[in-house]
């Protein structure tokens, strides 16, 4: 940690979920839920920079927006500004369930339960900087209005005092008085990002959530912005949540890192340790795919497959569909059979229906007996990973159906791994290569 003066927790996030309904048809009936954020917990300590990384669509922006109060959580809690003792009390109260203590803590700290005064305090202390400075800066407003708006809304300043405050802010981000009366389109991408940062800093917030602040910029300009952010943090003690998909950037900027996969945290820990010695196979996969300037070609490798549908996250460990180390305990399920079938159109076309008793146990009905027999044979074939085969507890072939039952497993949760590290994997350590 760089500038942590005490151990105040700026945000304590507890089992946070944000689901979006999927609507269909003329009646717009809800047919499912996109589980964009699906059970996330962590603490953000004052003065630190927490990096949030993960593939596209894994829920980083959604998480950032919920934390910034721009979106209401579906369930779970975001708690603002706790002392170390309050944090301990909170976790005790949460374990104990509903009670006097919890109600009291929630009224004062839980972001979606705050009274007007505390809500105001939270909102002005939590600011967000977005990736796309084109759409986040109103093209019809002058820079003076854009940067001055938070000050006006919170009645911090007006008239010439306001202008001077804005000039001060612009100077902090490397711009100046000469830029006051220009429109966003008159600036380069890097300059627009500076304007966004100036706006976010206007109310001197505690926490700044930076969502891919440099992803649209060239490296030379990115370096300017990263230096600027660091300098501002040094001078004013900001807490940063730094969202990015660029591992080189996050390693440079973050004290701690949380790796997200499909709405959940797969691994978190102190930056250097996590980079040098990842525990979760997904963290390793991200690191191997990162084209940095020092590694050799040996380790540079991609990851097969795509991120599964967040409306139907896999059982057990969400990464099991792509994990090269997957074990029989990683959550193999009926959906994995259906996935395999989709790659075999001759068989898939003959599948009539799937009668599920649970995600792990179902009857697959085919048009004829030979197709059913063919599936049974295929389940023993090379296409099926051996750990998946080993997870099958029972297969029986009926007239036109195949009943399959997989070993039932619970969700793989984050567990402590020492040194401030948490990982959600059934393995104790990464299997060594070679």
């Amino acid at each position, binding site marked *: 940690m760089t500038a942590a003066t005490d151990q105040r927790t700026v945000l304590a996030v507890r089992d946070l979920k944000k689901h979006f309904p999927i609507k269909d048809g003329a009646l717009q009936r809800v047919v499912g839920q996109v589980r964009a954020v699906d059970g996330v917990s962590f603490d953000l300590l004052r003065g630190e920079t927490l990096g949030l990384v993960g593939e596209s669509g894994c829920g980083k922006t959604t998480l950032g927006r919920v934390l910034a109060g721009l979106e209401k959580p579906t369930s779970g809690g975001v708690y603002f500004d706790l002392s170390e003792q309050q944090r301990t009390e909170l976790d005790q109260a949460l374990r104990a369930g509903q009670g006097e203590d919890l109600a009291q803590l929630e009224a004062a700290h839980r972001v979606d339960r705050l009274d007007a005064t505390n809500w105001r305090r939270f909102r002005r202390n939590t600011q967000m900087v977005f990736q796309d400075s084109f759409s986040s800066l109103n093209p019809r407003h002058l820079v003076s209005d854009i940067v001055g708006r938070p000050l006006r809304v919170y009645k911090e300043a007006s008239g010439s005092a306001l202008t001077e405050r804005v000039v001060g802010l612009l100077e902090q981000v490397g711009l100046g008085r000469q830029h006051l009366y220009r429109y966003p389109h008159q600036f380069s991408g890097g300059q627009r990002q500076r304007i966004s940062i100036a706006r976010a800093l206007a109310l001197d917030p505690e926490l700044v959530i930076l969502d891919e602040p440099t992803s649209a910029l060239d490296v030379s*300009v990115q370096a300017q912005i990263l230096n600027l952010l660091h300098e501002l943090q040094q001078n004013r003690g900001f807490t940063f949540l730094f969202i990015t998909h660029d591992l080189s950037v996050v390693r*440079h900027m973050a004290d701690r890192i949380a790796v997200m996969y499909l709405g959940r945290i797969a691994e978190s820990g102190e930056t250097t340790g996590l980079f040098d010695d990842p525990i979760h196979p997904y963290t390793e*996969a991200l690191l191997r795919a*990162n084209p940095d300037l020092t590694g050799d070609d040996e380790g540079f490798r991609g990851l097969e497959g795509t991120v599964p549908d967040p409306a139907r996250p896999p059982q057990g460990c969400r990464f099991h569909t792509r994990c090269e180390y997957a074990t029989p305990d990683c959550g193999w399920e009926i959906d994995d059979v259906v996935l395999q079938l989709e790659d*075999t*159109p001759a068989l898939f076309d003959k599948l009539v229906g799937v009668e599920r008793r649970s995600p792990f146990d179902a009857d697959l009905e085919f048009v004829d007996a030979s197709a059913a027999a063919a599936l049974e044979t295929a389940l023993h074939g090379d296409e099926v990973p051996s750990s998946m085969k080993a997870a099958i507890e029972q297969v029986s072939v009926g007239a036109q159906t195949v009943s399959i039952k997989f070993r039932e497993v619970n969700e793989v949760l984050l567990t402590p791994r020492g040194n401030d590290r948490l990982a959600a994997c059934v393995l104790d350590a990464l299997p060594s290569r070679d």
Partner: protein
Amino acid sequence: MTAPATNLQKTDAPVVASVRDLRVHFKSKAGIVHAVDGVDFDVRDGETLGLVGETGCGKSVTARSFLRLVPMPPGIPVSGSIMFHPRQRCTACDGAGCVACDHTGRVVSTCPACSGTGCSTCEQTGAETLDLLTIPERDLRSIRGNRIAMIFQDPGKALNPALSIRKQVAEVFYAHRSDELLASAGIDPSSHSLPTGLLRRRATQQSRTLENVLLSLPPLRSRRSAITAAADDRVAAALAETQIPNPRAVMDRYPHELSGGMKQRVMIALALACDPDLLIADEPTTALDVTVQARIIELIKELQQRHKTAVVYISHDLSLVRRVADRTAVMYAGRIVEVGDSEQIFHEPEHPYTRGLIDAIPGAHHERGRLAAIEGTVPELIDPDPSCRFAGRCDFAAEVCWTRDPALEPVGDRQVACFIHHPPEHGEAPTFDRTAR
């Protein structure tokens, strides 16, 4: 990195395309934008040439010039040539690779004007030489997608949303491989009979409605479906090469049903379908996740090794180009400022801009807040005066840098455009020892 041995081979390999003094400007309200302003480089057989530089420095315009895809107007073709030397299959080994073809499976096509003895069209090289900037549009069409193929940043936009993958990939074969399709269907492509003529038009997808009716009648119908089947086989094989799981099923899908990585694989399949001599990839992985990006790059490398295609790989991401390219050309404000072996350039950059770019990438050795940022931004390229385009951001700029253009000249095995390496005849030369600020 590629082993040094192959690097040497590639440096000696014959040139597939050479760009000389390419200048493409654009008309704008503020004046003439000198987007590409005197670009020179060669692409050699079987190599990957990386083209890096910041946004707007002219990478895409350079790339698109190869196939004349820059819209004119507003583009203005000011000067230059892109000499392309098409290859043909090596007859000694039938493409398998032998000593005669330096194990590439292909050899230079001979100049049709002089049959290889050397004349003015081929600049005495004896190799077939086409200036891509001036050959007739009809000749260019037969090269596009056939001898030279291109992949773009956004695979979603490059694919037609209304056509199945099968139709889009098959089109390439109909356009460039109609003889092979006819032959596979058991029809002599050189015959001039009416049915063959009709089927040929079918094979090049030029059939009109009436012809389609004729083709659907018994004697021709089976032949027609034989052509379709032959095309399907080729489409499936092309998709399979890009490791798309279950290509026959993917063929019937539409672009919106595929993920970004999948779409880019389809684009690669399309690009490599006709085994081109040159592949131009303009930021092909910029829109993808790193995990998918790494897979696509492995794929391009592997296919390149198999097909011995020369690749121009364009990206703003230096770390990535280091992984991909045998040689790297660094572009700044419409010019090449440094070009040479990738290993050398990334290890010991010579041009101040290249140094700046490499230092700006956050690495493990950087202290936080101490990245070496290049101050300022890319200058406006409207009617620029003669000067080093980098002078405004260069730590070492001397007076001469503001008044004269440094030329791209040899420094060791590389070429660099900077007065530090080539002191001007008059005036004091800049040096790395003296910073301007």
